[in-house]
């Protein structure tokens, strides 16, 4: 049956123009627009909303690394996002670490979790891989419910933002915003470099034809595992940053519905595109915010978006735009 099906995330892209630092011309335009938006954004929109958006965008980008460029759909990515948040929260509140150290701690622990989960899950493909990641995430959720340091249903509250490098106070929203924007941009560029490195080329070949890559002598499992660990670490960084922004880390961040949300964001934005996750995160987070006053209809609208994306917008907003303009985004 699978011979006739089209694999998920298959984006038909025109030949990549290897431009500046691996960005195509269209992507450079997009990058410039992104940096401009980051600079002007907080003066036009509510900074805390933007910070939330950037954290989720980083989360979606980390997820997209796995599905878009390696072809692995992880159903349990919230485990890394939420665990990163809990560790960073605990580090900042109980151990008094400065924010940059807390974020790094969150990312590292999430990465370790990714090592364990990835090592178990990589052996399988497709939907079985997805199911194992889901099962592992449920176990992480259970651990978070029971472990005393997570604070159970109440979560970790009143996490201090602290002082960056011990010097710059992050309580003012604008200061925190620049830090978050910097973290996001670093993550964005890092992911891009990964994809356009020799390692990234091997990943691409694995996604397109794994048996061939194996026959050429590549140990594909190792490559996939590394991608998984990187994805988990970045998701952890995103979660850590978010918990510092809001001062709370709760069970919502490790729940399977959060895993579903990141899938939705990436789907709406465009699987396997560079800017897709960011746009997707913007749509979903924006919708949650602006439609909060419509209360009861938010779930229905989310469902409608899922359905529309799958039926008509399979390439996501950015993917459709890219194919319309015949560029690679």
């Amino acid at each position, binding site marked *: 049956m699978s011979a006739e099906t089209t694999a998920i995330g298959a984006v038909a892209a025109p030949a990549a123009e290897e431009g500046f630092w691996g960005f195509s011309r269209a992507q450079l335009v997009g990058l410039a627009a992104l940096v401009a938006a980051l600079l002007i954004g907080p003066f036009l929109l509510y900074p805390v*909303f933007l910070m939330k958006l950037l954290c989720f965008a980083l989360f979606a980008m980390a997820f997209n690394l796995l599905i878009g460029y390696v072809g692995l759909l992880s159903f349990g990515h919230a485990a890394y996002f939420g665990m990163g948040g809990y560790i960073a929260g605990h580090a900042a509140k109980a151990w008094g670490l400065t924010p940059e150290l807390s974020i790094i701690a969150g990312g590292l622990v999430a990465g370790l979790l990714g090592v364990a989960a990835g090592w178990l899950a990589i052996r399988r493909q497709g939907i079985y891989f997805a199911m194992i990641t889901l099962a592992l995430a449920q176990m992480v959720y*259970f651990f978070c419910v029971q472990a005393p340091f997570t604070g159970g249903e109440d*979560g970790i509250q009143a996490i201090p933002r602290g002082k960056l490098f011990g010097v710059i106070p992050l309580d003012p929203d604008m200061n925190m915003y620049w830090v978050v924007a910097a973290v996001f941009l670093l993550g964005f560029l890092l992911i891009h470099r990964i994809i356009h490195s020799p390692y990234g080329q091997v990943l691409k070949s694995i996604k397109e034809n794994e048996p061939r890559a194996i026959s050429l002598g590549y140990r594909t499992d190792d490559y996939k595992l590394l991608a998984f660990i990187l994805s988990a670490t970045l998701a952890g960084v995103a979660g850590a940053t978010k918990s510092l922004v809001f001062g709370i880390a709760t069970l919502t961040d490790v729940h399977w519905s959060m895993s579903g949300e990141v899938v939705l964001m990436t789907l709406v934005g465009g699987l396997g595109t560079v800017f897709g996750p960011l746009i997707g995160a913007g749509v979903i987070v924006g919708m949650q915010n602006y439609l909060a006053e419509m*209360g009861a209809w938010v779930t229905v609208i989310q469902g409608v978006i899922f359905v529309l994306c799958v039926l008509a917008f399979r390439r996501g907003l950015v993917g459709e735009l890219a194919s319309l303009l015949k560029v690679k985004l």
Partner: protein
Amino acid sequence: MRLNRRSLLAAGAATGAFAGHRRSARAQAANTIRLGVLSDMSGPYRDTTGPGSVVLTRQAVQDFGSRGFEVEVLQADHQNKPDVGANIARQWFDQGVDVVIDLPTSSVALAVNNVAREKNKVHLNSGAASSDLTGAQCSPNTVHWTYDTYMLAKSTGAAIVKQGGDSWYFITADYAFGHALERDTANFVRGAGGKVLGAARYPFPATTDFSAFIVQAQASRAKVLGLANASTDTVNAIKAAREFGLQRNMKFAALLMGVVDIKSLGLESAQGLLLTEAFYWDLNDRTRALTERVRAKNEGRPPAMVPAGCYGATLHYLKAVANLGVAQAKASGIEAVNRMKAMPADDDAFGASTIRVDGRCLHPGYLFEVKSPGESRNPWDLYKLVATTPGEEAFRPLAEGGCSLVKT
């Protein structure tokens, strides 16, 4: 039928632009008090809080009348998620909202509690159960109305032991709220001379079938089944308990349950249940009068306990604002709350009440027994009053809370 991408994109863009527009067109009047009802509008607690809380808040504004300033009521859905709730509260406060009201689900309430303190605004809580809001997490910006785990435990626990229910078995939702309810109730049971024979803690919210725990309760031979959970879980547990015939040997104590849940269960299954509420529509003439005023706007139903709390809290806040002056009240949440604590409260829902220094509003707790179908004369005639605990005794004593606002 081909779904046309262009048309869909256009529709989406239009909706987005429209949504953006609504937000920016808000009048900023210095003489307007802005209230935000932040509740569960689409999740499991929608019927016990949610839209009902908004209706009752608006009723309080209406009953307050016009005393020289405008009052505006906003609403939003926090979806029981602390970061959604905290984000909405933060955004509201930054855009001129003075008060957040309701906040069911303790994890969200605690998160917003911190935001309100940080921004020096007012947090009037009616929906959350955590007694930490007036204990370890107490705040000069917060007033906790209606109920908390201590009051539920004391009213139901101690009263049932006095009636002869001196051995208990708990079925407890395995999270902070369930544990707190179980712990507080167990303390009162033992304090009144009873024993706790055991407890089964089940995963929350993932459990639908309670038969295994019911059978364990049966085996324990306790006289009382204590249900330390809420809403759908309580309903499912009672349905299962009746199926297994537990009511022949045990009394059921629903530690948190309200009129909406009783309707959902049906009188046939709910009869004989013992529960505590802070408000019941048919309690006295004043509550009946309020119910008549509000019924048509409230989907034809009488108010439930939590929305009634929103009514009382809002009314008292507005009186405090009138007393203090709008500018002062808007400038400092702490000042407004202090004025609320200085003035005695009185409204149709709760009668006379006072607010303590730790933010706890003191009003009576009522122990009710659910009527049998034969005793009920109209669709919402559900309870008979069994016992009343006066306000000063119903809640945790000041000294025991660990609140930093209490000077010893």
